[in-house]
């Protein structure tokens, strides 16, 4: 059985990736997961300098999902290079770095700093709903999305994935724009903007009022968008949004994704990535699929 897939020239041993921000840099998972079995670890968003993130509460429960307002708390690219790359290089898995920024220049600086670093892929996060300048403006405007992609691509030392926001009228238009800007792949979806009010306290649960909705609740939106984007661009797609089982992973592959990322499921089931990989293998065995690549985009 072949599980290997190829994202913009980088071969993953299997299509299971982690979704940025839900797996740290993997350190919290070594007790539960064999990191060597993960196709690619996508680390949490990294900015030029340390970001404090938002005030608590940062987490609210939603039906079949969670709302988060972490706000890209991170120790900055230097600390990342020093602490996390050596740790992850101790495992046989690919590394993708999710890049956060407030301006084109900030994104570019992080990419420049990483150009010589020992990582395999960059993921440009132009879709974080949780910081005012977390790229969300870039993610909802095709021209800005193209501009930031072009600028980062010019300095990138690794293939560039651009992560798309679902909070748009026409995600295909954004995908075409980042393709035009030189993206090597796209990943989607980031979280849906949502809010929750505590009716007893008469206040929003999250300190930021609104946050990002993730988890199984958003899966149908994600599958629809992956399908739309697969029809709009010629780039490999990393699909995510509520993946909980191997069949969920297969659903994204069939909709047109080349690989999938497991996000919120990691939070309440630390073995989620392994379980999903095992279930995907079982699904392929019982349905007679020899090569995972034959599932990609098979549903028209």
């Amino acid at each position: 059985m072949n599980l290997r897939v190829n994202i913009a020239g980088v071969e993953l041993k299997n299509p299971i990736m982690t979704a940025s921000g839900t797996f740290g840099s993997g350190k919290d998972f070594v007790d539960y997961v064999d990191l060597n079995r993960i196709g690619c670890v996508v680390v949490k968003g990294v900015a030029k300098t340390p970001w404090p993130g938002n005030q608590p509460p940062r987490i609210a429960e939603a039906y079949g999902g969670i709302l988060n307002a972490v706000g890209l708390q991170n120790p900055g690219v230097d600390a990342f290079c020093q602490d996390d790359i050596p740790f992850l290089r101790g495992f046989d898995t690919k590394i993708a770095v999710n890049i956060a920024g407030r301006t084109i220049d900030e994104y570019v600086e992080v990419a420049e700093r990483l150009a010589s670093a020992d990582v395999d892929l960059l993921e440009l996060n132009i879709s974080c709903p949780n910081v005012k300048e977390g790229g969300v403006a870039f993610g909802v405007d095709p021209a800005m999305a193209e501009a930031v992609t072009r600028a980062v691509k010019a300095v990138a030392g690794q293939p560039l994935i651009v992560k798309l926001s679902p909070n748009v009228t026409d995600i295909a238009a954004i995908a075409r724009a980042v393709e035009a800007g030189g993206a090597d792949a796209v990943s989607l979806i980031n979280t849906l903007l949502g809010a929750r009010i505590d009716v007893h306290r008469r206040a929003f649960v999250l300190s930021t009022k609104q946050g990002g909705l993730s988890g199984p609740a958003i899966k149908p939106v994600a599958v629809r968008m992956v399908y739309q984007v697969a029809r709009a661009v010629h780039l490999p797609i990393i699909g995510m949004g509520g993946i909980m089982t191997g069949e969920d992973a297969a659903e994204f592959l069939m909709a047109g994704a080349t690989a999938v990322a497991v996000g919120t499921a990691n939070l309440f089931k630390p073995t989620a990535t392994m379980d999903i990989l095992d279930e995907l293998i079982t699904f392929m065995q019982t349905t007679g699929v020899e090569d995972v690549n034959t599932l990609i985009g098979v549903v028209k």
Partner: protein
Amino acid sequence: MCQESKTGRTHCTILSNEPLAEGVRELIFESPAMAASARPGQFVSVYCRHQGQLLPRPISICEIDRDNGRLHLVYACRGKGTREFADYRPGERVDVMGPLGNGFPLGAAGETNLIIGGGVGTPPLVELCKQLPGRKVVAVSFRSDPYLIERLALYGEVLVATRDGSVGVRGNAMKIVEDRGLTGTIFACGPTPMLRAVQAYAARRELPAYLSLEERMGCGFGCCVGCVTKIRDDGEAGFSYRKVCKDGPVFAAEEVIFS
């Protein structure tokens, strides 16, 4: 029996789930592995059966029964999750992950220790008292109906306050502490206003103090950076956000910034 594995999240068999007071219950479940490694002040994540509610409910470990491979939790029935827990019966299973967090620093015990609790901050103090060396004075407060008092009394003098004055002093535990001018190394768990008062008292009296904090959690084991609290540091901002689940839940009082 627990199906022990590296899953972290395990199906555990419930042995008992009895009321201790109005809206407060004690859940005893089997898990030799968790009981073997648990320390006072650590917590476990309890998961709902309702699959619309995916987040863990963090509950402190109240007692560790290593001999029988059991953990005791004491929880208040508040929201959707804890009200669901109230219906569980012996023999049924519940998904639990843990033990999580760092617990109380037993090595910091003084000759005299002042153990301060409020409401459902009280449960972790039982195992703390059991394991903490030195003399212990315990001051605890409740809305009206006290619980766990007899168990705490096994390890030291227990002073009780209730908000309505129905039992003991009227007010909260800090009123007892202040009125009597109690001193010692402080270990406290309770609502934020109480912890804030503990912090101020400890600072005024120059007492070492350790506070167990609460925050809403996404994962409970450190990966989501959801459960942060402000901890003093030397950086520009004067603080950084640290994780209650992994760096805590217990922090030295002088480090904590309540905002």
